[in-house]
C-alpha cells in the first residue's frame, strides 16, 4: 500500500485541476485518476488521499473530491472502505481499462503523425482537437 501522490514538499503533484476549463472539476479529477492508472502511476491496491486531505491540498470543495471518488467507485475503479479511505480497485477493470487506453493512445499518435506529415503545425492540430471536443455531437459530457 503506497501513497504515491505526495512529493517531498507535501503537495500533490499529480492532480492539477483547471477551474476555467469547460468541464466540471469532479470529472477532471476522475479523468486524472484514470489517467494515473492508465499510465501505471497508480496501481491496484494503492491508497488515494483522504477526501478532505485532497480537497485541501488542491484547494477545491470537499464535495468535488467526494463526487469524483464515489463516481469512480461506481465505475469499479476505486474502492471506498469505511474509515480507511479510498483505494485503487484490485479487480480486472483497472487492467482492462489500461489496455484499452494504450490502444486508443496508439490511434491518436498515428493520427497526429499523419497530420504532421501533411504539414499541419502543433498549434493547428491542437486547435482542431480542441474545437472537435466541444462540438455538440461528440461532446463527451452529453453522451
Amino acid at each position, binding site marked *: 500500500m503506497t501513497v504515491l501522490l505526495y512529493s517531498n514538499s507535501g503537495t500533490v503533484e499529480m492532480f492539477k485541476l483547471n*477551474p*476555467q476549463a*469547460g468541464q466540471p*472539476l469532479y470529472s477532471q479529477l476522475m479523468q486524472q485518476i484514470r489517467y494515473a492508472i492508465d499510465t501505471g502511476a497508480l496501481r491496484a491496491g494503492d491508497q488515494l488521499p483522504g477526501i*478532505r486531505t485532497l480537497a*485541501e491540498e488542491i484547494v*477545491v470543495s470537499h*464535495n468535488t473530491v467526494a463526487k469524483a471518488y464515489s463516481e469512480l467507485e461506481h465505475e469499479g475503479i476505486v474502492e471506498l472502505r469505511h474509515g480507511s479511505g479510498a483505494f485503487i480497485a484490485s479487480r480486472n477493470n483497472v487492467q482492462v481499462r489500461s489496455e484499452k487506453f494504450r490502444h486508443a493512445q496508439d490511434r491518436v499518435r498515428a493520427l497526429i503523425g499523419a497530420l504532421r506529415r501533411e504539414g499541419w503545425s502543433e498549434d493547428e492540430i491542437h486547435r482542431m482537437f480542441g474545437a472537435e471536443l466541444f462540438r455538440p455531437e461528440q*461532446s463527451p459530457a452529453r453522451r
Partner: protein
Amino acid sequence: MLDYVIETHDLCKQFGNVHAVSGLNMRVVRNQVTGFLGRNGAGKSTTIKMLLGMTHPTSGSGQLLGRSITDPKQDLEARRQVAYCGEDKQLYAYMTVKQLIEFTASFYPDWRSEVAASLLDRFQLPRGRKVKALSKGMRTKLALLLALARRPSLLILDEPTEGLDPVAIEELLQTLSGLPADGTTVFFSSHQISEVERIADRVCIIDRGRLAVDLSLDEIRQDHRRITLSFPKQPPHHLFDLPEIRSIETNGRQMIVVSSHGADAVVERAKSADAIVLDIAPINLRELFLGTVQDHK
C-alpha cells in the same frame, strides 16, 4: 432532496429612496460552498446583514436554518448555529490571542477546545501576542478560529480574503474548502471571481438588489458555451429566440452567442441560416459575471 440553510422570499431593504435589496429570492444549499458575487452596492452586504439580524428587511421574508429572520426569537435560535466573519474583524485589540480565545469560549457552552487548539497550531498564531499587533492575515485567521471552534452549521463570510497576502489567501481557501466535511455550510461574498471559481460548489450573483444568477459551477463548466458564428449576410433577427440564450453580441456578419445549455440548438439554427461555426468554447465565471452585470447601466 436539497436542503436549504438560507432562503429568502421577495426580500427588500430600502434606505430612504435607495433600494439596496429589491425582491431577492435566493436559496443556499446545505453542506456546500456557495460564493456570493456582485458589484459594489449590488446588495451583498445588506443581504448578509439582514440574514444575521443586523438590519431589518423593509419587506419580504427569509429563513436561516429554517427559522424566520424576522421573528426575533426564532432568529436568535438560528444564530446560535451560525458564525460570521465580517469585513471589519472587530476583535478586542488589547487582549492576547490566548486571552481572546478563552474569553470567547466562555460565551459558548458547545465550544470545542480541541478544534480551537488544532486551528491555533495550523494557523500558527502567536498565543501571547496582542490582537492589535497581529497582521491583517493573522486577524482573519483568528476570527475564523473563533467562528469554527463553535462548529457552526453555517459560516457566513463577507469578503474574507480582502487585503490578505497570497499565502494567507491560500491558507484561508484551503480551510474553507474542507469545511463541508465537518457539516459546515460556507456562504461567502467576494470580489475575487477566481477564488469563487476554485472552491465554490455554487455561485449566486446579485445585481441591483436581485438574484441574477444561481448556478452550480459544474453547470457552468459543462453546459455554458460561447459560440462564434459567421453569417454570409446580415444575420436574421430572432434566429436565436431560445430560452437557453444568455446573450447575443452582433458585430456585422459575426455573432457571438452564449448559451446556458450546450451548443447543439444554436449550431443547428446557425446552420439553417448558412452560418459557419467559427468556434465553440466554454465560458469562465468572469465572463459570466461580466455578461450578467454589464448589460445595463
